[in-house]
């Protein structure tokens, strides 16, 4: 077995130089909860692991211009413990919290979940609905990209080999805003989504939706931003006709596969139902209600 190298750079520049200069495959690692499993199974055979956790900014949560900047390697346990983030973006925090066990939460991160590029990643639809932006660093400096542009196919991202995510930015929240994420699994814990749905809405003082983003997971090769589903909500309250349009738009966006977790027909049906339920929670939260999500 060729020897596997490891580096723990303490600056972005050093990390990029290592990724760009490596002979063979170099992989950035934050919590390692996916990477080390793939290493062990032989699915991934890197020549170099670049541990990014010692780079300033990679771990921690800070408020900036009314929004939040979450270091790319910040653990789920740290998100869960941050009262301000939970109050502003309960759906994003709950989506992250659904991933794996307490042990996994001690290491797993939003950016890691994103870069693993699973169609069923729980945090990704919630981040897409939230309008989250990835701050990406590479040899040409820093760039930003919406989260929905990162996953391009199962297991693949739009990042170049010498780029990595430094932080996830969540925008400032207008008044009367709320988000939610629901995942359907046939049990209560420790499973992979059959369908996941993230919704983020802003309402006016009368409770009419003025802005909405809806995202679905596990119903296509990548997590989806469903523009038609968001558009179905704007200008309306959650009346029966609006819910029916939301349901139909969510189903229309689905391009799932049939596998042991569900058939194409089942996943499509569940996507519509989950969109209704998730939207109901997001609307209640936008009205100031404290609603139990997952």
């Amino acid at each position: 077995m060729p020897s596997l190298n490891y580096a723990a750079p303490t600056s972005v520049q050093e990390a990029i130089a290592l990724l760009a200069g490596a002979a063979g495959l170099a992989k950035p690692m934050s919590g390692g909860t996916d990477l080390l499993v793939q290493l062990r199974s032989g699915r991934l055979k890197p020549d170099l692991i670049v541990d990014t956790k010692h780079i300033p900014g990679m771990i921690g949560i800070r408020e900036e211009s009314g929004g939040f900047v979450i270091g790319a390697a910040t653990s789920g346990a740290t998100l869960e413990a941050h009262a301000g983030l939970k109050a502003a973006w309960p759906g994003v925090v709950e989506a992250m919290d659904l991933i794996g066990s307490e042990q996994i939460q001690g290491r797993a991160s939003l950016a890691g979940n994103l870069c693993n590029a699973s169609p069923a990643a729980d945090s990704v639809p919630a981040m897409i609905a939230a309008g989250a932006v990835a701050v990406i660093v590479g040899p040409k400096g820093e760039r930003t990209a919406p989260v929905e542009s990162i996953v391009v196919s199962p297991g693949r991202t739009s990042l170049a080999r010498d780029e990595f995510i430094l932080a996830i930015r969540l925008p400032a929240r207008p008044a009367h805003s709320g988000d939610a994420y629901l995942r359907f699994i046939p049990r209560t814990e420790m499973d992979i989504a059959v369908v996941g749905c993230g919704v983020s809405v802003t309402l006016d003082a009368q409770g009419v939706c003025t802005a909405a983003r809806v995202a679905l997971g596990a119903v296509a090769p990548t997590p989806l931003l469903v523009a038609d589903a968001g558009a179905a909500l704007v200008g309306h309250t959650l009346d029966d006709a609006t819910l029916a349009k939301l349901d139909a738009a969510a189903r229309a966006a689905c391009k799932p596969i049939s596998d042991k977790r569900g058939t194409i027909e089942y996943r499509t049906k569940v996507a519509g139902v989950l969109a209704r339920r998730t939207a109901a929670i997001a609307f209640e939260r936008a009205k100031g209600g404290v609603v139990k999500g997952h």
Partner: protein
Amino acid sequence: MSKHHVTTTINGEAVEFLCETQETLLDVLRNTLNLTGSKEGCASGDCGACSVIADGTLVCSCLMLGVEAEGRSITTVEGIADGEKLHPIQQKFLEHAALQCGFCTPGFIVAAKALLDANPNPTEEEARYWLAGNLCRCTGYDKIIRAVMDAAAELRGEARAA
């Protein structure tokens, strides 16, 4: 690449070891340091038998590289008892017969310790969710939960639960 020289703290003692990149912390604990309390069940972060506490955070030692232990403070199941005196969680596992084959027990003890350090008064539901990352194929979990809830009561200084 030559082996990494790692300086860390394990169960309160300064420890140095050498490891290859691909060796997990679990590999190092068991094979290099002869701390064989932590078990390898799945080696993929699903079973929790290798649970350790790293700087106060519960993690799977199979999903952490040995080299990542540099400068950290690690608590394994061997560090839970106070010398010969069992920790109340360990004592309650014995009293409630919360194990059969015992393979999962070290992971449960460590995970329960992390739970009670963070939340001394969990509800049964909170305890069950917290321990959902630890698999036991013998007990059906009920005795484990009773042992943890009883240990929590004792650690809070309350009378023994019925």
